[in-house]
C-alpha cells in the first residue's frame, strides 16, 4: 500500500475515533485544566511548524524561493484582515509571479 493510502486510512480512522470519544467519555476524563491548556497550544506549534517547513524547506534543506513571495502576500492579507480565500489565492498569485521571474 502506498504511503498516501496508509495516511488516508490512518488519519481518517483516528480523526473519527477522537470525535467519537469526545461524545462518549465522562466529562471529567478530558476536563482537566492541564489537558485543556496543552490542547489549546498544540494547534499553534504544529500549524506554525507546518507553515515553516512547507514555505522554506525542500526535503532536508532550507531553501528560500518563490514561495517566500507567496507567504509575504499571505501575511500582508492577514494584517489587512482579508478573508481566508483572498489569503490563499493572493499567496498563490504572488508565488506564481516570483516563479515566472525565475525565483
Amino acid at each position, binding site marked *: 500500500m502506498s504511503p498516501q493510502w496508509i495516511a488516508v486510512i490512518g488519519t481518517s480512522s483516528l480523526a473519527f475515533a477522537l470525535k467519537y470519544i*469526545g461524545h462518549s467519555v465522562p466529562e471529567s476524563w478530558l476536563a482537566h485544566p492541564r489537558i485543556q491548556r496543552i490542547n489549546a497550544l498544540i494547534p499553534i506549534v504544529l500549524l506554525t511548524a507546518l507553515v515553516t517547513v512547507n514555505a522554506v524547506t525542500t526535503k532536508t534543506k532550507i531553501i528560500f524561493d518563490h514561495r517566500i513571495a507567496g*507567504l509575504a502576500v499571505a501575511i500582508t492579507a492577514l494584517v489587512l484582515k482579508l478573508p481566508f480565500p483572498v489569503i490563499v489565492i493572493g499567496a498563490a498569485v504572488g508565488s506564481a509571479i516570483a516563479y515566472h521571474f525565475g525565483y
Partner: protein
Amino acid sequence: MSVKRDSFSLSFAVGAYGTAFGAASVTAHFSVLQTCLLSLLTFSGASQFAVIGVLGAGGSALSGIATATLLGTRNALYGLRMAPILKVRGVKRVIAAQVTIDESTAIATAQNSNEDQKIGFWHTGFGVFIFWNLFTLLGALGAKAIGNPSAWGLDAAVPAAFIGLVWPRLVDTKTRLIAGAAIVLSLALVPFTPSGIPIITTAALAIIVGWRA
C-alpha cells in the same frame, strides 16, 4: 430563522476553502480519490492540510498521521461540550461525531436555547460537510488539469492556508513566543531529521509549556 441563515452562510464560506484543500492535496501527490476520501472521512480541515503537508514535504505516513491526529484532539473536547446538548445515541451519535468540528460547535454554543443549539449544530455540521466535499472535488480536479503546481503558485497556497489557520490564535505574547519557538525548533531539525519529524517534534513545546501553565 437567523440560526439557520448563520449556519448556511458559514457553511458556504468555510466549504469554499475546500477548493484550496483539494488543489493542495493533488499538488502533494495525493490522487483525486484519496483527496475526496480525506474530506469525506477525516472531515477536519487542519488535520487534512497537515497530513498532505507532511507527506507533500517528503515525510512518512506515520509522521503525517501523528501530526494530523494531534491537530484533531480538539474535536474530542468539542464532542465533550456537544454531548449534553445533543443527547443522541447509536447511529445518530456516530453521525453527530463525524460532523463535530470547529464551526458546528462554534455556532451551537453561541445559541441561547437548547432548540437553537441543536439546529445550529446539525445545520452547520451538514452544511459544511456538503460544501467542503463539493469544493474539495472541484479543487482537486482543477489542480489535476493545471499541470506544474509551482507555475500556478499552488506550492505557496499550502503554507498560506496554514498561516491563515494559525494567525487568529496568536492572540498574546505567550502564543507568539511559542510560535516563534516552533519556527526555530522545526528549522533546526530540518537538516538532521527525516521530513515530518521537525513538525511533530514541536508538539513537545506545547506539552512542556501547557504542563507548567
